[in-house]
Structure formats: C-alpha cells, structure tokens
C-alpha cells in the first residue's frame, strides 16, 4: 500500500469523522454539522446525488427491457441479493451484487447491502415504529442478553426530534406498546382493514390494527420545505429515488442539510479499513482509509469518531482495528465484540380472501399498509416461547381480468377490468433472542480487494423462533377465521436470517463493561471517543422496524458529544 502523503496531516484533521452515509450516518452528519463541527463523512461506495443520480426514477413500465424482471444470468451470479423482494430491474443499481463483496457463510445468511452515498436509505420500506418500555425492559424482565442501559424516557424526545425532521405519517393510536409520535396525517386504511381492526377489538380486546407509521411527507411542514422536499405523490416506486423527496433518505434529507452548513466534507469511494488507536493518549486518533478506486491508503484524524457502516460492517471495522492495547479489536476487552447478533424473524405469511365489501374498493396507491403491534407476552409471559411478533397487514382488490379467449375476444377482455374479491395478507416480524453463538468474526486467511479480512457470519434460528412461527400461524389463522376470511393459506418461507435486513447487535449497549461494549451514550466503554450508533449497538431487537431507533440514538449521542464538550 502506497502512502498518500500529499496533504499534510493538518489538512486531514476534522472535528469529527463519520463512517458510513446511510440512514444513521446521515443523521450523525446532520447533527454534528448543525452544531458547528467540521465533519468528514467517509463512504465506501460511489456518490449518489439527490435527483441527479436516480436514473430510473421517471421511467415508464414499458421502458424497462424486462419489465422489472432480473435477467437469469444476473440471478444466477447473485443468488443472495436476488432473494430480496426489492432487487428488481428498476433499483438493482443500488444493491451490492454477491460477487462484488463476498463474505463467508458458516451458516446460511442473506446479507443485503447498499454501498453508496445514502446506503440502504434509498431502498428501505420506510416503516418507522417507536419502541416502548415493553421492549427496552424485555431483556431484564425475561432474562436474556443484558439489561438495556436506557429506557423509553431517555429516547422519547429524540424520537420526536427525528420524526419532525424526517416527516413521519401516522395516527395517534394511544397504545402503550407503540408510543405515539410527531405525526403528519395518516394514510387511510382500507374498508377491510378497518373491518378487521374492529373484529380484532371485538374478539380479543388487546390486539390492534393501525396504520403503519411511515417516513412519508403527507403534509409538508416548513422544515420539510426548507429541505427542498415536497408532499409524497404516492408513486410507490420509492426504491428508485424520489424526485419529490416524498420519503426520507439520507440523500434527500440529512446529507444536503449537512452540506448547507458548510461544515460537511463527504468523501465517497473511501473504504474505512480500521480505526487508529493512539496508545500514548489512550484513545482513537483517526481512521485508515483505502481509496476504493486507486487502492491508495490515507489517514484522517479527529477527536471523535462515529461508526455507522450498518450493523455487520461496523462489527467488521471494529474487529479489524487492532492495536497493542486492543489485540482483538477496538474496545473488545471482554471478547464479546461480534457476538449476540440478532435479527427479525420474517418467515411466516398468511393470505386469505374476504367476500364482503364487494361494492367497495380502493383508489390510487399508498406507500404503506396496516400494522399489528406485538400482543404476545406483552404484559406477562403467556406462551412457551419468549417475546413475540408484530405483523404487517395489507388488503386490496385486484384486476382479475383473465386471459379468456383468443383473438379479438381476448383483446376486448384485456381492455376490461374485473375486480376480484378482497385479498388480505400478513407477514410476521418476530423478535429473536441474541445469543453468544450467533456471531460474526474475521476470517483468518481470506481478504477482499481492499485488504480487509472477509467477514465470517454464523447466525441461525433457534427453538424459540420455530415456536414463534408456529404461534403466528395459529393465532393469525384464528384471527382470520373469526373475521370470516376464507381460503386461508399459510406459508413458512424458511428464509435464511439476513433477508429481513434488520440484522442488529455485536457491539451491544449495556451498563457493565464486562458484559457489553457500549455505555448508555453509545460510547465504547474502553475507548470513549468512539461512538456506535447503527444497528450494531442494539442489545435486543424488539419487533419494530429498527431504523427510526438508530436515528434517534444517533442524534442523542451527538448531543452528548456536544454537551460534554468532547470536541
């Protein structure tokens, strides 16, 4: 590796360094730069500028050579990413292809990644539910992992802070298990969803169907207009990048906001290899970057470093940051770095039909759906498995005009619309229990093109997950039957962990340095000027889509840095 010595060390010194420009890194950058700190964001992927680099955003369906389908050759070369529902012709350029960045699966794990400015924030499904104390108190109550060092009251105002800026639509539902936030108007449920909501209340009392809260601007506020973002136009092709900035992404929101302060330096094509430790001062001093294109190495320095490379890559960077003080990876005095990784169990689905409301239908498209918060084991343990699941719930009527006839008859039929009955479908989002045996580690021998050890992933389901899949299927079958849904079909995809794209942990927060890596401010216990505010910090997973919590933790940690005058 050649030494890149053109700039003086002085010029390569900032107030803070952020590794990764995705959902969480974008938030760190916004908060730091707003507080006047000169911030360097290092991103391993290419630059993706809002509206400039969305090549497919305005394409019509017929302009896609394969009408959305991924060609066989690409599928065969990339079996992992091809299993992701959003890996389609219109957005495949925002996904990492398997062979570009290989990793080692000790057990099957579908690692879905987006390496570019904005990370996976361009691709996400924009579901944003708050955690409650039923979640933060989970490990302590049920005796797994370690106790979270924070509670809902510590993060509530940060949820609000994030929601107001990002633009979250939803209803105030008044449910303690899914606290209300700062919401823009909700996107209405369908007739059948409203009906099911009533049936659940009637039959169970404590099972609720609500509008899933989502990061879409339904009523732009001055803060959104200042970002150059407008009302969501319900295109529902968000994964291509949205010209209106209707949904939240780093590219449309936090990064341009940070740039406007004049305090942001964004360096794409910068693979962070490791964090450099100053043995004399007893803290981190900077990072070693490998230029993604030239492979030249260069060091950058700052008194504070945030790692936001997305959960597993954050583990990789820390494990690879070896020094005399930390021979097993930065901050890893207890040997737990990379361990207690967990995810969400998305295996089971249940579909059915409903023959009511035949005189009603929906109009237009919507970028969200219904949501059923966790009801299992909520107030007390009531099943033979720990924790529970939330569920997405969606209903609609579709054009079922068949392909009857041939010739002119077929042509006429295709021009007609024949609405089918209502279809309903639901999928589980189960909490999994973090375990020492679910871990990631560095491979001893294999390195990638940039000289980084390949990541070895060893993560699996357990008996608790199997029981939960079974329970979801049983409970939802009963809930569906009681609502009069017919033609019920259940399935267990047995999909590998990872495809939920909610992998978390490995650098967990906790009270005790002996059993955790981070303290209540997301600060490494053993190296206080390094902060981890992405999914790697998660002590447990709850059932909610996690990114909103990463954002809130990120903003909260930056506030701590500024308040405690670390810079």
């Amino acid at each position, binding site marked *: 590796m050649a030494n890149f010595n053109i700039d003086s060390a002085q010029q390569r010194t900032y107030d803070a360094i952020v590794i990764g420009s995705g959902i969480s890194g974008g938030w760190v950058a916004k908060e730091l730069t707003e507080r006047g700190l000169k911030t360097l964001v290092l991103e391993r992927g290419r630059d993706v500028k809002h509206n400039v680099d969305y090549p497919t955003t305005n394409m019509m369906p*017929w302009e896609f*050579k394969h009408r959305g389908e991924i060609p066989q050759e690409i599928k065969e070369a990339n079996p992992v990413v091809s299993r992701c529902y959003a890996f389609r012709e219109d957005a495949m350029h925002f996904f990492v292809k398997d062979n570009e960045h290989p990793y080692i699966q000790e057990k099957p794990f579908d690692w879905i990644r987006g390496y570019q400015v904005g990370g996976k924030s361009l691709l996400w499904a924009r579901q944003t539910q708050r955690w409650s104390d039923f979640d933060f108190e989970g490990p302590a109550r049920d005796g797994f992992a370690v106790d979270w060092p924070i509670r809902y009251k510590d993060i509530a105002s940060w949820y609000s802070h994030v929601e107001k800026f990002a633009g979250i639509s939803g209803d105030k539902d008044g449910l303690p298990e899914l606290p209300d936030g700062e919401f823009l108007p909700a996107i209405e449920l369908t007739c059948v969803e409203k009906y099911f909501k009533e049936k659940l209340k009637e039959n169970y009392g404590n099972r609720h169907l609500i509008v899933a809260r989502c990061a879409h601007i339904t009523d732009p506020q001055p803060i959104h207009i200042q970002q150059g973002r407008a009302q969501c136009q319900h295109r529902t092709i968000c994964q291509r990048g949205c010209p209106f900035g209707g949904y939240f992404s780093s590219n449309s929101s936090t990064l341009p906001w940070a740039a406007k302060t004049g305090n942001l330096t964004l360096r794409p094509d910068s693979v962070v290899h490791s964090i450099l430790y100053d043995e004399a001062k007893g803290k981190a001093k900077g990072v070693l970057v490998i230029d993604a294109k030239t492979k030249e190495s260069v060091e950058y320095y700052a008194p504070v470093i945030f790692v936001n490379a997305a959960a597993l890559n954050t583990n990789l960077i820390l494990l690879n940051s070896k020094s005399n003080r930390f021979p097993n990876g930065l901050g890893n005095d207890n040997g737990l770095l990379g361990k207690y990784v967990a995810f969400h169990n998305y295996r089971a689905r249940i579909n059915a039909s409903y023959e009511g409301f035949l005189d009603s239908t929906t*109009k*237009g498209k919507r970028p969200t759906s219904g949501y059923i918060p966790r009801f299992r084991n909520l107030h007390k343990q009531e099943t033979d498995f720990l924790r529970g699941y939330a569920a997405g719930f969606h209903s609609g009527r579709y054009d079922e005009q068949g*392909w009857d006839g041939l010739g002119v008859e077929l042509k006429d039929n295709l021009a007609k619309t024949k609405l089918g009955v209502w279809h309903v479908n639901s999928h589980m989002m189960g909490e999994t229990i973090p375990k020492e045996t679910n871990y990631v580690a560095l491979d001893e021998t294999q390195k990638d093109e940039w000289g980084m050890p390949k990541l070895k992933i060893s993560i699996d389901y357990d008996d608790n997950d199997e029981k939960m899949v079974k329970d979801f299927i049983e409970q939802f079958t009963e809930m569906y039957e009681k609502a009069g849904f017919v033609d019920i079909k259940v399935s267990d995809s047995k999909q590998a962990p990872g495809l939920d794209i909610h992998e978390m942990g490995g650098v967990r927060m906790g009270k005790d340095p002996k059993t955790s890596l981070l303290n209540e401010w997301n600060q490494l216990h053993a190296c206080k000027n390094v902060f981890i505010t992405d999914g790697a910090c998660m002590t447990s997973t709850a059932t909610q889509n996690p990114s909103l919590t990463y954002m809130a933790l990120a903003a909260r940690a930056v506030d701590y840095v500024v308040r405690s005058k670390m810079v």
Partner: protein
Amino acid sequence: MKRRQMLKHFALATTAAMLLPSCIKDPKKVSIALSNLNVTGEEEELLAAIADTIIPDTDKPGAKTVGAHLFTLVMIDDCGNKESKEKYMRGLRAFDEACEEISGKSFSDLSVEERLTLLKKIDKNEVGLKEDVVTFYMASKQYIIQGYTSSQYFLTEVKPYQLVPGPGWKGCIAVSETPNV
C-alpha cells in the same frame, strides 16, 4: 387508429425496449440483438404471425404492432434458464411441422381465420402435440400478453399508467366511482 400512428407506436415500443434493429435488411436474420437465442428471420415472422393471431390489429394496434413478439424473444433470451430456452427453441422449430400435421399447411399459409381456429385448438389442448410445442406456445402466449399489456400503447390508451398518481389515495370508495369496471 391510422397506420402512421400505429407505426409510431411500433417504433416507440421498439426503441423503448432497447431493441437494436439490425442495420442490414437481411431477411434471414432476426431484427433484434439477442445474446443466446439463435432465431432466424423466418422464425421471428412466425412468432409475429402468432402474436397477430392471439391479439390482432383491429382499429387499434394489436400485439405484433406493439412489438410483443420481440419482447417475447427478449424475455426467453434473457430471463429463461438454459433448459427452458432450449425447450422453447425446440418447440419453435417444431411448430410449423405440427401445424402441417394438423391442418395440412404451414402457419404462414393459413388464412387469418384458420390461424385462429388452429391456435384455439392448441390453447384448449384439443390436439395431441409434443410437449415442446405446447411449452413454446404457452410461453409465447404469456409473454405476448404481457408484452402487449405493458406496452406504451396499452398503458397510455387502454389502461393508462400513472407515474405520479398524486396524494388522492382512498381506502374505501364505491366501486361505481372507479373507471373501467
């Protein structure tokens, strides 16, 4: 629809699908660039005739005019696996022979009505055909319909696609208030 307009639709469908017309008008060669399939100009014409029978031109363009047969070749070429491609090609090559066995003529020599009658028989599985031929026909029909219903013509004039529907989502409205039903 005027012929000129139909030609315009065809041209658009072709460029939009990024199909490259070959420069030299060699009647033996397929008119688009394919990576794997070895299709001749005659075979392309046969598929076009099948498309034109399944969804014919009337006063409005049909499947052949919007290029649905070319879309079919692209999809088989790029999105099928090796086995399904081979099967499709065997079926394509055996189609005319099967046609002659049933009706005494090759597909291109049949009148428009005879073509329709023949395809209806194949469609209803009334004639004992080799598996490859049935596979070829069913795959072609599926892609021809898909190509037609996702063509620019169909999605602008028959069932218009809205790229930007606007925020007027309604979760529950009377069916009578929706178009087309």
